[in-house]
């Protein structure tokens, strides 16, 4: 039992992953709260006023982490979809299902905070430029994935159809990321430049990185909570799930 050599492939089976996920949730939640508290402290109380955008720039501390996570979660889902299609592993489809709602919410938050930032700085809530439009397409891809997989009753077939959609849609991620370089857009390039005042930019950068870590931990926690429910649902006819349901532990 105390063998230090952990067999990681063991956790690819839902029966092994279910209890592991349950044990990991409080740790990731604690890390997320710690990172979030530190990031908010730096972002809202310590970081100085931006010389161009005043206090309005503080939206960056939620906008950039949400945008990064919206793209990163999609890449993770596409990764699981590829694994699932190639090796027919059961857990991969469950992971894509568990991640999709949080990814969609991150894309929504990216657009929402972006609109609230665009209005005072550009004078408009929305423009059809490359960065904004490709991020909107990302939100539609998430919604499309959720709707497509919900419309197919057989879980394994839903995973396959959804997986193909994810892999086709992954082309949108580099388009979002490089859109500010490839096209002339209203959206600014890199958000924090280290060339202004070094100490000031460093505090902003640290606040943003801590917030990004907090968003990362949040997404992991939500995916783990959701995947546990999906595992129970899909594996309900197995003996180990029946044993869990028969017992009092959840």
């Amino acid at each position, binding site marked *: 039992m105390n063998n230090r050599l952990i067999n990681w492939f063991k956790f690819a089976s839902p029966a092994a992953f279910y209890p592991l996920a349950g044990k990991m949730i409080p740790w990731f939640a604690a890390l997320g709260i710690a990172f979030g508290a530190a990031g908010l402290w730096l972002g*809202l*109380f*310590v*970081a*100085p*006023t931006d010389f161009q955008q*005043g*206090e*309005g720039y*503080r*939206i960056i501390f*939620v*906008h950039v982490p*949400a945008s990064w996570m919206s793209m990163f979660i999609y890449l993770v889902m596409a990764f699981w979809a590829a694994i699932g299609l190639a090796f027919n592993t059961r857990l991969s489809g469950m992971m894509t299902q568990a991640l999709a*709602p*949080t990814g969609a*919410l991150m894309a*929504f*938050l990216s657009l*929402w*905070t972006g609109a*609230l*930032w665009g*209005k*005072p700085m550009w004078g408009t809530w929305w423009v059809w430029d490359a960065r904004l439009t490709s991020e909107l397409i990302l939100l539609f891809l998430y919604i499309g994935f959720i709707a497509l997989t919900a419309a197919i009753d057989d879980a394994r077939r839903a995973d396959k159809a959804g997986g193909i959609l994810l892999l086709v849609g992954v082309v949108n991620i580099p388009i979002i990321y490089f859109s500010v370089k490839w096209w002339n857009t209203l959206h600014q390039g890199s958000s924090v430049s280290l060339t202004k005042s070094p100490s000031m930019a460093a505090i902003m950068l640290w606040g943003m990185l801590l917030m990004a870590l907090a968003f990362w931990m*949040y997404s992991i*926690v*939500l995916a783990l*909570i*959701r995947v*546990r*429910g999906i595992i*129970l*649902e899909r594996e*309900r*006819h197995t003996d180990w*799930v*029946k044993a869990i*349901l*028969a017992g009092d532990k*959840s």
Partner: protein
Amino acid sequence: MMHWNSLADFLAMGGYAGYVWGSFGVTALIMIVEPILAHRRQKQTIFRLRRQMRAEARTPSEGST
């Protein structure tokens, strides 16, 4: 180290209060509501599967699927 002179100063956000708090507020709302809904759904799944299992146990002839 503290950047603000007063609470009112902090809340005003240099005139950008609606934009800044609109961003942080909706983000906070989603990050409170989504975990609650996800957790509740997990509990409901367990509750429903338990009920199904008990129902299947009562009718053994149909419980073999």
